Every structure is written in structure tokens, then in C-alpha cells.
């Protein structure tokens, strides 16, 4: 058994470094940006005259549809359609591009809900105090709202990130040989799926532990100004 662990772990780790981590990190970064934009558009209250207002409502509708679509359908199917389905209508991506696009959009949809909830948890007096200083919308957001929303959103966002790390295993279905598939290929030969799965689980655990530590560091920072009270 030790022999198997010793000989197979390096290639699993290597697949993780080559595919799992970059896909997860890049997609999460892009996904967060998408999520923030989506959340803000969905929270916004349309203003302005007839046409502007109409376009605004349409925008809100489109973003709501996007969130609904990507939350409501399985990620595997999304990957499949982007990679195998879109070529039918003439849009062809390579596996990496298809993967990053799909994972980003998927993460963006889920994370936008989290961010939306976090922002609306802040009392409106915080917006008011900031506006009363003459800050622009984006100054209010970046200086006052996001830093406070982060505190609430960190645990669920970290859930999303950690979930994404493990969802990257679905990339094997669009021909990316990520670490889960590698471990299955090895298991098919040594007939030790439980052992191979445990190894790959351990590798995931290392990645995710790093993320969890990061989460707790960020939480500590975000919480420095207030502590919740239990008894």
C-alpha cells in the first residue's frame, strides 16, 4: 500500500498543479468580478426617464436570467454544451477556454447571490452616511460597502471556492485530464479505487486547507472591528 501511495501521489499532485489549481483560481477570480457586477445590477433600482429605465430593467432581467440558468442546470451539462454543443452553431472553444468560461459563469451565478445577500444585510444608513460625504457610487461601494459586506460573505464565498476546486474534476468530461481522472485511470489498473480515491481526497484536502486558512485570516481581518456575541 505505501508503495502505491509513494508511486502514484506525484502524478496526481502534478495533475492538480497543472489543471486543478489554475482552472479553479482563474475561474474564481473571473467569477467574482461577474458576481459583483451581477449582484449590483440586480440590487439596483432603475432610475431615469422612459428609455433609460427600460434598458435598465431589461439589463436586470438578463442578469436574473443568467443567474437562474446557471444555478438551475448541472455544471456537467453546462460544460458539455459549451464544449460539445456550441460547435454545432459554429462557436468552437478549446477545452481550456470552454472550461474557464463555464466555471467562471457558474461560480459567478452562485457567488452573485451570496454577494447580493451580504450587501443587503448592511443597514441603509451606511449608504446614506457615505453619500452624504459626496462620494460617488463606486466610492461608496469600494470604500464603505464592500469591506463590510466581505465580512458576511466570506464564509459562503469560501464555500464556493472550495466547491469549485472540487468541481474542476468535471473538466475530465471535456478532455482535460485533471487529477480525479488520473486517479481513476490508476485505480482501474491496481484495482484499489478506495485507496486511490483517498489519495486524491488527501491532495484536495491540502489545497482546500490552504484556502480555509486563507479564509480564516481574511475573516480575522474583516472582523477586527467587531465580534459577535454568544453566551
Amino acid at each position: 500500500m505505501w508503495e502505491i501511495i509513494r508511486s502514484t501521489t506525484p502524478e496526481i499532485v502534478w495533475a492538480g498543479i497543472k489543471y486543478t489549481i489554475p482552472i479553479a483560481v482563474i475561474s474564481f477570480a473571473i467569477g467574482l468580478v461577474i458576481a459583483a457586477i451581477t449582484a449590483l445590477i440586480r440590487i439596483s433600482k432603475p432610475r431615469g426617464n422612459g428609455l433609460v429605465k427600460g434598458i435598465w430593467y431589461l439589463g436586470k432581467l438578463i442578469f436574473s436570467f443568467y443567474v437562474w440558468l446557471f444555478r438551475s442546470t448541472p455544471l456537467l451539462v453546462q460544460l458539455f454544451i459549451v464544449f460539445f454543443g456550441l460547435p454545432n452553431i459554429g462557436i468552437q472553444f478549446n477545452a481550456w477556454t470552454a472550461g474557464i468560461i463555464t466555471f467562471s459563469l457558474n461560480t459567478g451565478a452562485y457567488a452573485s447571490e451570496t454577494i447580493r445577500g451580504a450587501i443587503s444585510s448592511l443597514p441603509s444608513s451606511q449608504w446614506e452616511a457615505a453619500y452624504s460625504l459626496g462620494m460617488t457610487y463606486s466610492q461608496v461601494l469600494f470604500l464603505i460597502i464592500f469591506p463590510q459586506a466581505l465580512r458576511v460573505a466570506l464564509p459562503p464565498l469560501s464555500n464556493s471556492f472550495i466547491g469549485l476546486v472540487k468541481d474542476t474534476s468535471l473538466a475530465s468530461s471535456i478532455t482535460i485530464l485533471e487529477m480525479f481522472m488520473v486517479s481513476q485511470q490508476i485505480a482501474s489498473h491496481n484495482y484499489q479505487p478506495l485507496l486511490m480515491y483517498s489519495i486524491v481526497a488527501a491532495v484536495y484536502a491540502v489545497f482546500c486547507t490552504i484556502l480555509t486558512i486563507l479564509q480564516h485570516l481574511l475573516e480575522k481581518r474583516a472582523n477586527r472591528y467587531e465580534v459577535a456575541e454568544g453566551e
Partner: protein
Amino acid sequence: MIKLTNVDKQYKEHHALDNITVEFPEQETTVILGPSGAGKSTLLRAINLLERPQKGMMTIGDLTVDFSNNLSNHEILALRRKTAMVFQSWNLFPHLTILRNITEGPIHVLKQNKTVAENHAMELLEQVGLADTANRYPSQLSGGQQQRISICRALAMNPYYILFDEPTSALDPELEAQVLRVLQDLAKSQHSIIVVTHNMEFARRVADKIVFVEEGRIEFAGTSDEFFNRPTERIANFLDAMKF
């Protein structure tokens, strides 16, 4: 000058500002008086554009808006930057230190240099006796301390008009006097001030003009002298009632 003309604000449940027309003269101190729930905070918030009245016109200095039209972002910002507000419930930013609560506006809105802004903030903090709290967070201050910080935050913006919503309500008399003296100094210098307060003594001594609001309507607007020395029956009642 700030001038409101026929301003109307209707909540679903309540008519908060009922066709208000009033002027706040430049370089003077106007005190807004009135019972609880009269619409005093709503009036200040409308001037700061935190509340959007459904009808009426407002002029602040060289800018005029009509509330029945949609205001552009540019207009809103321009108007807001002419005033600074001290809130009734302080509304400090809990995630920023006291110092940054004060410097955030000057640095990002007025584009002041960071050192300049911090020096100015420290001066203000010293004036209210809280220089040693500069690096604490709002949750670590007492109520009265938080209120003084929120005054500093507004003063740091050097606004055309300063709006105070009960600036001394959580202060002990010693400090109240101190803060009122700060306001008095401001009043004497080139500042234009609008204050909602319950401190009659302050109103009597500092107000150039007094506006009395009741049930969303202006019941009186005139000089301090008229208000205190030649009150109408309603005002006389109000002045009587406040004598505990």
C-alpha cells in the same frame, strides 16, 4: 443660500413634508425646532438628497433642481458636496478607524493629500478632546464619543452648509456646552449652518433664524426674537411644555 419651494414628501404611511417653502440664509445659523416626528430629520435629509421629495424645487447656492424631474448623478453629487450632514444616530463607518472615518471624505472626495487630511483630522479630534481615540474603532467608543466623531467627520469636509441633526443629544452638559461653543464659533465665522436641536438655550443664543415644524408643515419661520419674545399661541404652548 438654500431655498426650498413647495417641497412635498409622502411616505406610504405618512405625509412627512407637506408643501414646504423655506429659506436658509447664507452665513447664518438656522435652528429647526418642532416635536418628535414632525419631519425635522426628513427636511434635512431632503436637503442632502438622501430623501427624494416627490415635488418641489430646491436651490443650493448656484444650483437649482426640480424634484419632479429625474436628477442626474452629476447634479446629485454637485448638490451633495455643498452640504455635510451630522446624523442623529451618528452612522460612523464601523470598519474604519476613527481617523479614517474622518479622512475618508477629504481624501477621496476632496482629493486632499493624505497627510494634510490626517493633520486636519487630528486638529478636529483635539478640538473635541478625542485625539487619543484616533486608532480605535467606533464600536470601542461611548455614545457621546461617537457623536463627536461624526461632527468631526462633517467638519472635515469644509462644506458650504453644515447640517446638524441633534448634534448634542447624547452629550453630557459639559460636552454639550463645548460642542455648542464649537457650533457658535462656526456660526460666527463664514459658515452657514442648519441645526435641528432641542436645546432651547442654544436656539435662543445662537439662532439667527428659527424654523418651527409641525406635522410636516412650517408653522413658523422668523427671527429668534420673534419666536421667543412674540410667540404665537402654539409656540407659547411648546415653549411652556418644555419646561419640565
